[in-house]
């Protein structure tokens, strides 16, 4: 029952993200637009390119969707509204999201197209940049909660949200999450206008619909993870816990999309240089500072 409810909320959330994305990128607020474009995608022919690696081509978008749904399973929307409250929830989230990379490599390699392949391998480089900046801030969050369970992490922020307790970690995680979700300015694997859609380039029809759905679930899952780790999860006055989660998640998504609207796409080499030369030392500093803070203010 809980699973169904969470999936339903996720579906509503994905729809809202699609509306938001169209609103922010095109400036027009149209509630029915995602439904129309989904219908158009489902009605269109789904082409298979010449000499593909058919297995990867077919499986890639499905792996993306499954991986993101698994990641969403450990996000608590309220104390009881969670599909599975694993003791290693924060680590499991990472494990599931690691398969986003596998999905993109499969989808990039599968169609036997130059743009798609470059997009897929680009995301591998992107992973080398963002991966540590996802894991190390989570380490500091788990240090405060003394647990990897996502519900414990939310409860640990009852007095003070982590965004105040460890702002540096929040900034690093937020940027890295945008990198993982390949949102602009980190949309290197899809890179519209430069790679002609990259990984998405050779997909059409129902396969493209599955890919885009997986991407939307990925965006909302990462926004939900940001809320869980740094913005106090379901906590807040007046409203029901699940409503607080929903409001916060949509706000975080909107901020992520808005940043992408106004910041130009970053170059892969620059992204790697910034993440490794600045990001990782800062993430270490964050762990160090949280360690000291935990001794001073338990």
């Amino acid at each position, binding site marked *: 029952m809980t699973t169904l409810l969470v999936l339903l909320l996720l579906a509503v959330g994905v729809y809202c993200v699609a509306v938001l994305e169209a609103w922010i990128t095109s400036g027009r607020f149209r509630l029915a637009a995602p439904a129309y474009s989904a219908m158009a995608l489902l009605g269109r022919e789904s082409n298979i390119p010449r000499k593909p690696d058919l297995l990867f081509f077919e499986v890639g978008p499905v792996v993306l969707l499954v991986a993101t749904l698994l990641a969403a399973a450990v996000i608590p929307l309220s104390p009881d509204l969670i599909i599975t409250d694993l003791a*290693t929830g924060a680590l499991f989230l990472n494990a599931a999201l690691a398969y986003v990379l*596998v999905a993109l490599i499969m989808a990039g390699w599968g169609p036997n197209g130059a743009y798609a392949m470059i997009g897929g391998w680009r995301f591998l480089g992107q992973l080398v940049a963002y991966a540590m900046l996802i894991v190390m801030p989570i380490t500091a969050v788990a240090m405060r909660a003394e*647990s990897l369970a996502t519900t414990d992490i939310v409860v640990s922020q009852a007095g003070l949200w982590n965004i105040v307790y460890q702002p540096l970690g929040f900034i690093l995680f937020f940027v890295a999450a945008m990198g993982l979700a390949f949102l602009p300015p980190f949309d290197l694997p899809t890179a519209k206008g430069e790679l002609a859609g990259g990984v998405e380039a050779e997909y059409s029809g129902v396969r493209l619909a599955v890919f885009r759905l997986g991407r939307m679930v990925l965006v909302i899952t990462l926004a939900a993870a940001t809320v869980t780790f740094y913005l106090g999860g379901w906590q807040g006055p007046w409203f029901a816990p699940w409503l607080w989660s929903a409001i916060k998640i949509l706000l975080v998504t909107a901020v992520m999309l808005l940043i992408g609207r106004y910041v130009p796409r970053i170059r892969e080499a620059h992204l790697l240089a910034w993440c490794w030369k600045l990001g990782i030392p800062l993430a270490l500093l964050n762990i160090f500072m949280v360690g000291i803070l935990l001794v001073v203010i338990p």
Partner: protein
Amino acid sequence: MITGQSIFIGFFGVAAVWFGIVVFRTFSMVRSAIALLFSQTALGAMFLTMQAEFLGVLQIMMMATEMSIMAFFMVMFMMDPGGMGKMEMTHQKRLSLIVGLVSFVGAVAIAIFIDWGPVATTVADTAQQTKALGLELLGRSMLVFEMAGVTILTAMIAATSVAIQPLPLSAIKHKKDRV
């Protein structure tokens, strides 16, 4: 006694071996790497079935990135990465066969004949397991893990330096002149 747990362990075990075989049955380097990934993921699933949650999740997470990076290296280094030319890329077959068989027999012998101590009847809760694992890694196993880490790093640096094409002499001279 056959329980649901042992059925699942068996299933994931067979899946791990089957994907391991696929690694050598395909000509495509990317397929080969991804097959190895799923073999390792099946191992992670075995850990999960045995209620070693932290180890299972860690295995599943680490392998996804490691095997993808390996796929990239295989595409870079192999002459026919897509496998479309059906090029034979295995070598030293007899030696590999012997080494493989000897290691397999050795591993099975160790598994059967070693004294594993009394079988645990209850499983410690995950937090306790994670703590015990941390103490183990920072205790007597530290040296082993550090050695493994340094060895892998050395291999990576060596592989990269071998892969870099040496500059022709004229280019080096030209560079020196400019400096």
